[in-house]
């Protein structure tokens, strides 16, 4: 349809424009401190990118954007190679992005562009809800090849089955050839399994983007925040090639933005303090990504002053939080009231607050841990599932209902001691482990069971023993979201469909570690 085609065209344009803007921004940020010989090349590339952007904007009929790109091109031309003043260009890029965001939402502000476009013979529909992905052709071709291999493998299997079926049951021929036939079938099955694994891997990879896609944004953030706070801060990155699920990129960017800003503003000390402590004048924030046992781990480490717990407790008290002394460092840092206040003070209007970012991370089965050494530095560790589409899960059964528990949170499983179910906790690794009977929690049992198993889960340092009837297999599940009409049931993270077609709920390990026992009050 015409409108679909236009929406797709607009989507493509926005995607490509965003890439070009990011490239120009990274080139501009690199200019500071660049040798004169490299500088010329960088400026030439920036001009080329902007020129193409101008042409594409014009082609879409967005004369406003075309004009902006043109002015940016002029500004790059006018840069003094001796002392490039890039601030106006960065601001220009921001304005360009803001305009694009309006176009993406089809907001009222975009009316002007839409009118222009309409005059030019195009009427772009809102591209909201439509997401596009850029995929190297080579990868698509690889997937097509795998699909073709699968067809061939199926023919092999069919031949083996056909040959067996053609022989009379109980016939001596069948007996003589059964081993061969079985071998052929088994070989074919193994072949198919390998192809399917590669196919699954390839398709999942389509959903992945390298973590490095976020680095440009962070570099800009560090520069702006450090300048505003009067600090000298260097951003170092490692593991930029680490894959990140496409649907988690925004979330990770938001969370990392908060953590990095936090490191620059609260972590890195003023120069004189650093001098006194014998640290280099320029502080370092390291963002390091890696894949660890089925999840992506992104650390934000700073060599600043560490978190001043007494000051944090004092701030919490001022914000009217009761019992701040007894709270964990984690609870204080991510307290909605503290992070909101900070947001309002320092960078109002910059997306969601730190605590909201943490909520979003939890909703996607991730976690943020924190460790700090006073005077030496702080390390935040953001963990996200490697894929939002596939997860490793332990199947458990409670009152005849099966559930899938994400394996990342499972520490160990224990047999339930007779009579222990009714108790609210049991000893575990030198301390008391609070217990939660899942049947009671989910309303399928009136009383905690006396027999069964305890699955110990731990998220962000909080452990809990979940009581279940039976432990099932550990295996990969395909995660499927539940429609919002189902509410957001406490303790349920989503759903999956098992091999036999049954729908099974996925448990929310984080939610369950914090869930109140039925009958307990806040």
């Amino acid at each position: 349809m015409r409108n679909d085609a236009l929406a797709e065209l607009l989507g493509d344009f926005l995607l490509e424009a965003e890439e070009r803007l990011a490239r120009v921004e990274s080139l501009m940020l690199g200019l500071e401190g660049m040798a004169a010989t490299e500088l010329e090349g960088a400026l030439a590339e920036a001009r080329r990118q902007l020129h193409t952007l101008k042409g594409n904007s014009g082609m879409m009929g967005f004369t406003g954007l075309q004009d902006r790109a043109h002015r940016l091109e002029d500004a790059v031309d006018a840069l003094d190679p001796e002392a490039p003043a890039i601030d106006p260009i960065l601001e220009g890029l921001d304005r360009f992005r803001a305009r694009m965001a309006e176009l993406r939402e089809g907001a009222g502000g975009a009316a002007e562009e839409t009118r222009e476009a309409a005059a030019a013979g195009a009427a772009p529909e809102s591209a909201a809800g439509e997401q596009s992905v850029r995929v190297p052709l080579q990868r698509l071709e690889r997937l097509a090849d795998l699909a073709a291999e699968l067809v061939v493998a199926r023919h092999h299997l069919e031949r083996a089955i056909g040959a067996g079926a053609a022989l009379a049951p109980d016939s001596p021929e069948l007996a003589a050839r059964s081993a061969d036939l079985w071998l052929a079938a088994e070989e074919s099955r193994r072949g198919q399994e390998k192809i399917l694994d590669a196919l699954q891997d390839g398709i999942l990879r389509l959903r992945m983007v390298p973590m490095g896609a976020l680095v440009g944004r962070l570099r800009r953030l560090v520069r702006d925040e450090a300048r505003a706070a009067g600090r000298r801060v260097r951003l170092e990155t490692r593991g930029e090639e680490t894959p990140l699920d496409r649907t988690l990129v925004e979330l990770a960017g938001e969370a990392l933005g908060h953590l990095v800003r936090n490191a620059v503003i609260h972590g890195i000390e003023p120069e004189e303090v650093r001098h006194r402590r014998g640290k280099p004048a320029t502080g370092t924030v390291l963002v390091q990504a890696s894949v660890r046992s089925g999840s992506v781990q992104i650390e934000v480490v700073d060599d600043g002053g560490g978190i001043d717990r007494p000051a944090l407790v004092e701030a919490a008290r001022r914000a009217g939080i009761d019992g701040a002394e007894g709270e964990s460092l984690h609870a204080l840092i991510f307290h909605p009231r503290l992070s909101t206040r900070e947001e309002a003070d320092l960078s109002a209007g910059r997306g969601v607050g730190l605590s909201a970012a943490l909520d979003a991370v939890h909703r996607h089965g991730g976690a943020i841990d924190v460790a700090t050494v006073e005077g030496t530095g702080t390390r935040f560790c953001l963990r996200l599932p490697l894929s939002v589409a596939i997860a490793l899960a332990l199947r458990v059964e409670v009152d005849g209902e099966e559930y899938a528990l994400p394996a990342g949170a499972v520490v160990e499983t224990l047999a339930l001691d007779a009579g222990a179910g009714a108790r609210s906790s049991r000893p575990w690794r030198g301390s008391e482990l609070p217990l939660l009977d899942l049947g009671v929690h989910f309303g399928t049992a009136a009383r905690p069971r006396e027999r069964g198993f305890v699955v110990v889960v731990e998220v962000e340092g909080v452990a809990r023993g979940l009581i279940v009837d039976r432990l099932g297999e550990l295996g990969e599940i395909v995660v499927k979201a539940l429609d919002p009409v189902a509410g957001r049931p406490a303790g349920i993270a989503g759903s999956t469909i098992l091999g036999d077609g049954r729908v099974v709920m996925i448990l929310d390990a984080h939610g369950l570690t914090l869930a109140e026992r039925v009958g307990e009050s806040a």
Partner: protein
Amino acid sequence: MKERKRRGRRGPETVELEGPERIYAFADRLQAGIEEEPEEKERLETWVFFELGERSFGLPVTHVREILRVGRIARVPRAPRPVKGATNVRGKVVPVIDLRMLLGLAELEIGPESRILLLSSRSRLLGLLVDRVRRVALIAPSGVREAAADLLPAAPRGPLGTIETEEGPAILLDVENLLLLNGPERAPDEREA
């Protein structure tokens, strides 16, 4: 005067309910039939009629993508009350809402005649559990009468109206309002009292 506008020659037609293709084919045929009669001004609408207990209800066919036999429904613990559970519709997890509970009627066991109306709106799919599907029929919007205020006292939103069918009156439901399909994505029990 509403009576005068109702079609006399062609009463509501019925069709076997096997799959969406049939329904759409039927709707197309009727549409074509309407266009052959230029003197007929009123645009008829195709609705799906079904029953909860002794009462008849109708939903516009435009929202009903399929009529399914009831398969296995997995419980969704702690979900809002009208949510019966979730079922697998060709690899998609679709929440099933018990229309009886949603309308504040007594709950009933799933029987051999129970069906799930698969509703689709934008990219969402929802199942609506009903006792029995009767037929797909054409109605004339002019024949719709206002519903009595106390017709469905426990329903979250009032019905669109009632209409007289061969078997008696049927209550026309406003599916979008009922399930908040187009509203903010909230659970049906989170609505304001």
